[in-house]
């Protein structure tokens, strides 16, 4: 990266921090300890920014996965596929003609079945799209024998169960297989679940790191300002009076970091979303985030100052008890 670009970025960052600073300028009177002058304030700000950035990414990923598996399961809930395979159960190959005739015959029967809302034969070109990534457009159709596929939509209040329907299907056609996607789907959902737990673990680590850093920073500030704190005590300041000052100071740093981190995180997520939509492949699911998930991400700037606030307050109270 050129130094000019880096300079611009730094300028932008400083400007951003300034704008937030102005908002707090009016509230600042009333610090009795020179907390703003602590040397590690900038370091802490960057740390919180990074942590929030990571948290936004991890949360977005987790929420996107959640939304995606919801879409998968609801999209396939009432859908099954019937296959007329090119090979019978005892190993005979069927001709393409037989497969096609059997498929069409079965489709008509299925349409009149009380269990079925709609039955649609998947045309060659539909299948082509599905198989394209594996086989490639050129090789298709003439050479490769394809099974017959019927996409079924089941009536919502069907009078019979899927198991009853299986028996009926066996009577209608001795070749047909029923594929209810459950196995395939549950595996995908399980995989999504693993990824989600992973992002949960990452979130826990992020929060743990933030809390640890806040505790360390508070302790360092208390050590630096031991004399001033002692004086405040001597003129009658109770522990909570002192703790509140630390709380405010640390929360403001965390708030700035959280806003910055959320902003950077959301920008990255949007870029990822746009990229994922540009790649038009059925294998790579497009990244989408629901409105509610988006709101959850926006709540982050409030969540981090909140844990910071509680952590700082409790740390001061505990350390003061040890001090005197």
């Amino acid at each position, binding site marked *: 990266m050129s130094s000019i670009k880096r300079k611009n970025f730094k300028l932008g960052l400083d400007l951003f921090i300034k704008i937030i600073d102005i908002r707090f300028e009016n509230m600042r009177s*009333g610090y*009795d300890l*020179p907390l703003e*002058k602590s040397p590690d304030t900038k370091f802490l700000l960057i740390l919180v920014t990074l942590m929030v950035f990571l948290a936004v990414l991890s949360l977005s990923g987790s929420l996107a996965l959640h939304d995606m598996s919801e879409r998968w399961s609801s999209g396939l809930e009432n859908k099954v596929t019937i296959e007329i395979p090119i090979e019978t159960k005892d190993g005979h190959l069927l001709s393409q003609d037989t497969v096609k005739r059997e498929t069409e015959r079965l489709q008509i029967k299925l349409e009149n079945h009380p269990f079925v809302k709609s039955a649609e034969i998947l045309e060659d070109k539909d299948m082509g799209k599905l198989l394209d990534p594996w086989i490639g457009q050129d090789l298709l159709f003439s050479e490769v024998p394809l099974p017959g596929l019927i996409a079924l939509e089941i009536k919502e209040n069907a009078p019979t169960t899927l198991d009853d329907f299986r028996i009926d299907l066996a009577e209608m056609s001795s070749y047909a297989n029923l594929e209810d996607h459950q196995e395939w789907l549950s595996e995908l959902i399980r995989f999504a679940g693993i990824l989600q737990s992973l992002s949960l673990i990452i979130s826990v680590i992020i929060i743990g790191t933030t809390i640890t850093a806040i505790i360390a920073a508070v302790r360092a500030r208390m050590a630096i300002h031991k004399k*001033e704190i002692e*004086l*405040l*005590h*001597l*003129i*009658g*300041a*109770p*522990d909570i*009076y002192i703790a509140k000052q630390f709380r405010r100071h640390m929360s403001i740093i965390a708030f700035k970091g959280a806003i910055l981190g959320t902003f950077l995180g959301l920008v990255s997520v949007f870029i990822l979303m746009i990229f994922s939509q540009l790649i038009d492949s059925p294998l790579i699911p497009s990244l989408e985030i629901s409105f509610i998930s988006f709101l959850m991400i926006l709540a982050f700037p409030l969540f981090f100052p909140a844990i910071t606030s509680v952590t700082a307050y409790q740390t001061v109270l505990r350390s003061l*008890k040890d001090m*005197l």
Partner: protein
Amino acid sequence: MIKFENVSFNYENGPDILKNINFTLAPGSYHFLSGPSGSGKTSLMSLLYLGHRPTSGRITMLSQDTKHMTREDFFSLRQKIGVVFQNYRLLNHLTAFDNVALPLRIQNKPEREIKSNVSELLDWVGLGDAQNSLPPTLSGGQQQRIAIARAVITRPKLLLADEPTGNLDSEMGYRLMRLFEQLNKMGTTTVIATHNQDIMERYKHSKLLLDNGSIYSNSKKDLLIKTIRDVY
């Protein structure tokens, strides 16, 4: 009422600074505390503002036995005590105004009241123009006046002043002594540690003398030689 009963005190593993002393200070009384350098005046003060605990003995402050006080009790008691520390102990990053305002802010007084009271007092001690100055940019005498203003701003029940006129010329010194007199007339129990014979001569208040770990008083006309036992 303030009462010391058989109080001894020493710093960690050091020699006894105060040896088994007894005295009582009546509410609203006024005392000069003197004694040679190193005799323990500042140490006695720190027992009075609960900065240190006695090694042994019992201290009763404003009618509360300090032995059974909680942490919170300590802070609320200290809010009733104004202290002028010998080394001032100002907060160097706060302006003169904010230093003096500190005890009021700790006591949650409304900012408007703070503004007018602090400005008025700073004017009175001759620091009207230095309100926004930081202590390190001020002279020793100016810093001392900030320390005094901070101690009296809350109209404490007990005022402890450790050499409060040490860095002041006599005119300003007497001006501040008048401030202490006025406060005392309004009911503040006052203890002023000083070497200044002129001041002790001019104001006819009780004199306490610390020497060699014991305390003596001029009350009961027993000039500076008798250990006080329930004098009042």
